[in-house]
């Protein structure tokens, strides 16, 4: 197994403060990635609720929420 080069590593250069912020974000994403499938679906439904009623650039509103 190999990993691809990290985009943030290549774009943030030596700015340590920014690198720390992005490192923390990356760690959070990794934690979320490791969640069980059921928990991810729960989060997805939360995201759908948060997005409900928000207008897209075209003016159309999102409105679907899975009732599972």
């Amino acid at each position, binding site marked *: 197994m190999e*990993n691809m080069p990290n985009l943030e590593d290549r774009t943030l250069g030596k700015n340590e403060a920014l690198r720390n912020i992005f490192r923390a974000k990356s760690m959070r*994403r990794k934690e979320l990635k490791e969640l069980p499938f059921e928990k*991810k679906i729960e989060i997805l439904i939360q995201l759908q609720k948060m997005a409900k009623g928000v207008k897209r650039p075209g003016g159309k509103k999102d409105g679907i929420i899975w009732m599972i």
Partner: protein
Amino acid sequence: MYYVEPLLTYDLAIFFIPIEESLDVLAPIYKYLKEKGYKTQREHIIIESVPTQFIPVYNELVREAVQNSTEVKYGRIKTRVLGLEYLIAVMLQTYRAKDRERIIKIFEEAKVDLKFLRKLLKKHNLYGKYAKFRGSYFGKK
């Protein structure tokens, strides 16, 4: 989403291999579900509030991806998801903006078996596209 952090999405795509060749392999599925009371909405059928799309395998890559899909559990329900490398290959083939975005996310977050991916992409004539994509987004071929 199985392989990366949760992402906002609204629909569920179910790929399947039809048991027999027919002009309209979707008709019996839609007929059955309509009889159960499920309504259609454009290309989706709404099953228990989830917009669902049934997609018969449309080429060799997708057929192989379905044949090699992995069994996973959602609660006590067994289901299947496409293998990670197959998913990347299918998204490279469809190559919409959201596919490119998701491929980047997968490479950032998931452990991809690059050796297997290269072999798969070469088999399905997608390696050139992949090398170009990887060069553009990751600066490495």
